[in-house]
Every structure is written in structure tokens, then in C-alpha cells.
């Protein structure tokens, strides 16, 4: 139920733009209201439609149609540590997403403070540079924003603005070295094919320090889980910045610019800022806080096979399982507690598919009698020794939530 009583007027982008398909495979959007979900956001307001109207996507939770914000349905995360491409979440800043990408004429430019500018075709990039494969979690800076208390404006995500994939691509460093980075370079700036809808609006661009850009793990990916990237996840190329929030993972990457002075573009300098405090945590209303660009991710762990209110068996062993990730490093351990956090038991971990990816965890719980309520907490400690906190963080942008998750189960 929505108090705004929306009206539908049946526009598609094609009719708005008056354009025609440019060839290649065209998938027409069909109006499809697959169903509803009620995300358990803080204080309510989590009713959302689900949709199957987006190209290459199965059923997704609709947060916004244009530009698309699509959340991964939570059940997906119980099926495996790799999030399927057709249910991987989607988040765009501008609605100026191209209608088509021609893989024969597409070029990736490397320019700026370099010895030789490059303009690479996709086949050159794929065939002539060493291939790198790695698993990494891509998580929106504002994943879980809808759980903030007090609530804050922005996309009202539950926990599904994240996903883990195996990314295949080439090292950014190899591209930079091919162009020859000149002395005095400080940052590398990335831009995709996404365009502002309004003249003069800030083109979406993000930058990394030159040292970070030359890191072993930063890649330009042309494949996701062994297939071409879905259009809405950045086809044909996406920057992969393992361990860092998704805002840096520029989609439809087409332009790499080496800078000899710090990037002062809006998206790097003024957007996606966090309080420079532990856990990006401040008190609501706190003023004069030093702000810095969001950066590395922090550890998280989730329940995937049970939700609060679920019934489990009394006097029997019940599997409780989920996923965890270390943030900017691996998972050292996952622990659960059934006494409110007094005692913690180490959970079993599934196979290590790469330190930046999801890790399966599981444990068993045996309630003694019918009617027993069991409150279960889960926490992840990463390989840097960083552990999730029992106290939620708060900041006005709703970034970097990583509080310990709790579910309340009933023995029946």
C-alpha cells in the first residue's frame, strides 16, 4: 500500500526518446509485476514490487526503475557464494545509459599523464594482455541503509545491494604500463559510457590513487561468472576494485585518465564521503565532522537459510547457515552466539574461493524444548583482526553498515 496512489501512464524509454533499436539483439521490456516483498526495514516502509522487466535479469526487487536500482532477493544468497548474473543487484547514477554497445567499435582509452595514449579494442584487450581471474564482493556503499536508526534519505536498501562474482579481466597496471605512466602522476580517473541526462550535470567519474591503481588485484573485467557482464552490471568492461565499495567499480568503463593533480570532480571530491571516524560512525546531528571519501569495506556476516520468526525443531540439530566476507581481506573466522553475545562458538567455514569473496559458514543449534525462543547472533572477524560490532554505526548518508546480525527463532 502506498499513500501516494501512483498512477501508471505506460511510457517506455524508447517512446520517451523516440529512438529506434540500433541493431543487435533487442530485448523489449514487458510490463511485469511479478509480486511484492516486504523488506524488514527499521520502522517499516519496506513494501516493494518485484520485477522481471529488466534485460538479462530475473526476478529483482524494484527500488527505482530509472535510473535502475534493483536489489537482489535475499533467498539468492542461500544458494551459493557466487551471486548469479541475472540476480546481481543493479545501481546507476544517471539515466543516460546507452541503448546499445557495439563491440567492434568500442574503444577503451588510456590517456592523460602518459607517454603514449592508448585506444584499445575489446579484442586487443582480451587477447593481448595476461588474463586475471578473481572472486570479489561488490557492495553498494549504502547497502542496508533502510536499517539505519534514525532513518536517512537515499535508496532504501535492505541487505541485497551486494553480490559476489568471479571476475575475469586484465590488470589495470598492465594497461597503465602499456601507456607508460609519467612521473608526477597522483591519481587515475575512470569514466564509463553513462551520461548525465541534463546538460552540465556532473559526468559520473571516480578516481583511485596511482598506487592503488597499480595494485595486483585491481582489474578491468570483461567477464562475470564466466559470461559477458550483464548490460546493467557494466557491459562490456567494468573496473573491479576488490575490497572497496562499489562506487569505485565504474561500469561500462571507457575512459582511464592518469592525473598529475588530485581529482576535483564532484563524484570523487564531494560525493560518497564518510565521517573520518572509526566505523564512519557519528551521532545523529553531530556537526563539524571531518569527511573523507569512502574507501575499504568492513567485515560482515549474514544468515541466509532462516529469517527472524522462523520455526526450528526442538530436541534436534538444526542447521543455521549463511555467508560472510572480510571486507578488504579474507575471513579469519565466523562465530555465533545463542546467549546474547556472552559466549561465541566458531562456525564451520566452506571452501575459500578467494579472500575478497563470500565465504559460506554453518553451525548447528539444538533447542532443548518446544516453545524455546533462540536468539542467534553471528559475527565475522577478518584476517586483519577486525571484528563486527554489536552497536550499529550511524552517519547521514547511511554508509558502511556492518553491525552484528541477529535472528530470533522459535523451537516448535
Amino acid at each position, binding site marked *: 500500500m502506498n*499513500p501516494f496512489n501512483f498512477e501508471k501512464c505506460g511510457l517506455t524509454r524508447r517512446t520517451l526518446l523516440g529512438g529506434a*533499436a540500433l541493431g543487435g539483439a533487442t530485448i523489449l*521490456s514487458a510490463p511485469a509485476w511479478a509480486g511484492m516483498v516486504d523488506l524488514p526495514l527499521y520502522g517499516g516502509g519496506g*513494501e516493494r514490487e518485484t520485477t522481471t522487466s529488466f534485460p538479462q535479469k530475473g526476478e529483482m526487487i524494484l527500488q527505482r526503475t*530509472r535510473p535502475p536500482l534493483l536489489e537482489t532477493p535475499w533467498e539468492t544468497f542461500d544458494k551459493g557464494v557466487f551471486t548469479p548474473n541475472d540476480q546481481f543487484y543493479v545501481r546507476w547514477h544517471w539515466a543516460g545509459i546507452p541503448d546499445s554497445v557495439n563491440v567492434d567499435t568500442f574503444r577503451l582509452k588510456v590517456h592523460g599523464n602518459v607517454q603514449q595514449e592508448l585506444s584499445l579494442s575489446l579484442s586487443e584487450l582480451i587477447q593481448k594482455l595476461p588474463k586475471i581471474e578473481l572472486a570479489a564482493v561488490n557492495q553498494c556503499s549504502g547497502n542496508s541503509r533502510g536499517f539505519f536508526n534514525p532513518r536517512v534519505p537515499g535508496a*532504501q536498501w535492505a541487505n541485497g545491494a551486494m553480490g559476489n562474482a568471479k571476475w575475469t579481466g586484465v590488470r589495470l597496471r598492465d594497461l597503465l604500463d602499456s601507456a607508460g605512466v609519467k612521473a608526477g602522476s597522483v591519481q587515475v580517473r575512470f569514466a564509463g559510457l553513462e551520461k548525465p541526462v541534463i546538460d552540465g550535470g556532473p559526468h559520473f567519474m571516480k578516481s583511485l590513487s596511482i598506487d592503488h591503481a597499480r595494485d595486483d588485484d585491481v582489474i578491468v573485467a570483461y567477464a562475470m561468472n564466466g559470461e559477458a557482464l550483464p548490460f546493467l552490471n557494466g557491459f562490456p568492461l567494468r573496473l573491479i576494485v576488490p575490497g572497496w565499495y562499489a562506487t569505485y567499480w565504474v561500469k561500462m568503463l571507457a575512459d582511464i585518465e592518469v592525473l598529475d593533480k588530485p581529482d576535483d570532480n564532484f563524484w570523487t571530491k564531494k560525493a560518497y564521503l564518510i565521517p573520518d571516524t572509526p566505523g564512519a560512525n557519528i551521532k545523529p546531528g553531530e556537526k563539524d565532522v571531518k569527511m573523507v571519501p569512502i574507501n575499504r569495506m568492513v567485515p560482515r556476516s549474514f544468515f541466509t537459510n532462516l529469517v527472524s520468526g522462523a520455526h526450528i525443531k526442538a530436541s534436534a540439530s538444526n542447521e543455521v547457515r549463511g555467508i560472510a566476507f572480510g571486507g578488504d581481506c579474507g575471513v579469519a573466522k565466523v562465530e555465533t552466539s545463542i546467549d546474547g553475545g556472552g559466549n561465541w562458538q566458531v562456525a564451520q567455514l566452506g571452501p575459500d574461493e578467494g579472500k575478497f569473496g563470500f565465504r559460506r559458514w554453518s553451525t548447528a543449534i539444538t533447542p532443548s524444548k518446544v516453545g524455546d525462543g533462540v536468539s542467534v547472533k553471528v559475527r565475522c572477524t577478518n584476517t586483519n583482526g577486525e571484528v563486527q560490532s554489536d552497536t550499529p554505526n550511524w552517519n547521514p548518508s547511511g554508509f558502511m553498515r556492518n553491525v552484528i546480525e541477529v535472528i530470533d527463532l522459535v523451537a516448535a
Partner: protein
Amino acid sequence: MQRFAQSLTILCAVTLLTGTADAKDAFDLKSESFDLPTGDRTFIGAGADPVNNNCLTCHSAEMVMVQPKLSKANWEGIVKKMINVYKAPVPDEDVGPIIEYLSNHPTAGR
């Protein structure tokens, strides 16, 4: 020394870029073209016109409608950001009514 190491890397990489394709590394990408839905909802009720006329140019309505309860100052900040940062060409006379409409309508989240 560091400079020497970097030149070596450049040489190797340039060689890689000019080398011949290795069939086993071939990964086929096909040209794609898509039609994205645009969102077919409009704001209704008293005062909805300036919201429909301005806000829906850049984004569909759904996310606005599920914002938590925000103060008028919050909404004013959001509308001003759309205008000043994202360059939304909102006529001066529509700014106040848009803020008014958004602040007075109950939103879904609280």
C-alpha cells in the same frame, strides 16, 4: 632503479599488446542493444504538477515515494542539490511548491 624497472615493465607490456592472439584466451563478446523500462508512475494529488513536470525528467518516482519521513529542511536540501549539483533546470517558481508537496505527503518509510 625504480625508473629502470618501470621501463622494463613497459617493454614487456607493449610486447604483449603487439603479440598475436592466443586462441585459448579468446572470449567472445557480442554487440547488445536493450530497451530499459522508464517507470510509469506519476505523483498525484494537490500540488503534484510541478513535481511531475520537473523531477521525472531525470528519475522515476518509486524511490522518492519510499523515503523515510523527512523534515522540510531535509527535502529542501535534496531539491536544492538536484538543482545546484545535478543541474536540474527547475523554474524558480516551482522550487517552493515541490518542497511543499514532498514535505506534506506521508511517505512509506518512517
